[in-house]
């Protein structure tokens, strides 16, 4: 079971509300599928993101994958630790491996995303 304190996208990002900000990362399933993550490219603080728009790139040894914003809003912080330690996304995807914080434009938009049970069902279906 994935953590039930947050919502998920079909593209395997997670988003957790923290006050009026949303914290965004990728799921353990996504990190495992990518394999060893060696580079994470994140947006500049202050950039405005559209929901479902790309906000960055994650690279494993073999592959390059786009990151999609689960919700729209302005980027208020990025996880600087991933610059030197991108492997945190593999080892601790739901906590230390977080990627960006976003000032959420519409908190209600999270209700349209998958809850933990629905996301579990999605990855179980492969």
């Amino acid at each position, binding site marked *: 079971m994935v953590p039930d304190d947050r919502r998920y996208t079909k593209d395997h990002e997670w988003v957790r509300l923290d006050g009026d900000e949303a914290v965004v990362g990728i799921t353990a399933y996504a990190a495992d599928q990518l*394999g*060893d993550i*060696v*580079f994470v*490219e994140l947006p500049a603080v202050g950039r405005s993101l559209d929901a479902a728009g790309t906000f960055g*790139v994650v*690279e*494993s*040894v*073999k592959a*390059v994958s786009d990151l999609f914003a689960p919700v729209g809003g302005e980027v208020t912080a990025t996880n600087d630790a991933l*610059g030197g330690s991108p492997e945190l996304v593999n080892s601790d995807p739901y906590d230390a491996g977080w990627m960006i914080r976003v000032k959420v434009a519409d908190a209600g938009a999270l209700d349209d995303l998958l809850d933990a049970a629905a996301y579990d069902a999605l990855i179980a279906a492969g």
Partner: protein
Amino acid sequence: MTEPEGPRQTPLQDRHIALGARLIEFSGWLMPVQYGSILEEHRAVRERAGLFDLSHMGELFVEGPEAGAGLAAALVTDPPSLAIGRAHYSMICAADGGVIDDLIVYRLAEDRFLVVANAGNADVVSDELAQRLEPFKAVLDDRSLAMGLVAVQGPRSREILAPLTDVDLAGLRYYAIAEGAVAGIPALVARTGYTGEDGFEVFVDTARTGELWDALLEGVRAVDGVPVGLGARDTLRLEAGMPLYGNELDLETTPFDANLARVVKLGKAGDFVGRAALERIAADGPSKRLVGLVVEGRGIARHGYAVHVGDRRTGVVTSGTQSPTLGVPIAMAYVAPGDSQTGTMVDVEIRDARVPARVVDLPFYRRPA
């Protein structure tokens, strides 16, 4: 011979699945890309040992009184110059000098050679060789599907293989091959590889490849080694500066472009396919040059990314990754000859950004002596 639809499977397929490998289609074969972490597989080979299923490679035996002469006419190297039991890196080129495939040629006997081709080109090379050998008293026996190939690579390779074989490994030099038994299985044992480490490649009949794998895996495990998939095979060969067909080599590329002039034996007697074109290129100089790059900004240069000097596009990245050993992004790229000097600064176009990179000498990694 009829084959089932879909990708070919190596004789080790069930073992890979049991080991938890992630399988992908590669060159028409279903192959393990990784068993666990690519980085851990990579490090295991650099520090201890790794075991590779290379049964997808093509094994072409050429035999007959004119086998050597026939190969000399078909390839850019001079196989008759090989001592029995020795091998060299070679290429089969088209008439215009483009590379059809890169090969290893082993001399097994006075009139018997083994040519090992890349999986994706094995059928093309087999057909092309058969045609080129036509005028010669030599017979081509394509045993690609009848043979399995397992490689042990890494500094501990010799101590893993030694107790399992009657081949004198201490006496088996780099790029040498010997017949013998491994784990009781008739085998050809070669001291060759594609990782930049010491290691051995063991050829056996398809039917006995599973037994061979099991015996070698036990030895590899005993030194804390692991089975290794194509993912780490690619990062290992890239650090070692070795070309991969389809990335650094193709029909649009000549050996001179790839800094492999030493492979082309223009001084050998007799004609060979591609000679006229290759002599011209040798005289005029190549139109592009393969270089090593170390990315100095943020980002990883990948296959297909454009390379610029100032506003001028100079070439393209052929392979790139984050080097597990060096901890920096490395790449190989073709650039204009004038931009190929060591130390030249270029920009790699990584998504929307131009990221600086420095031309460096290849290989990126050389094993400790």
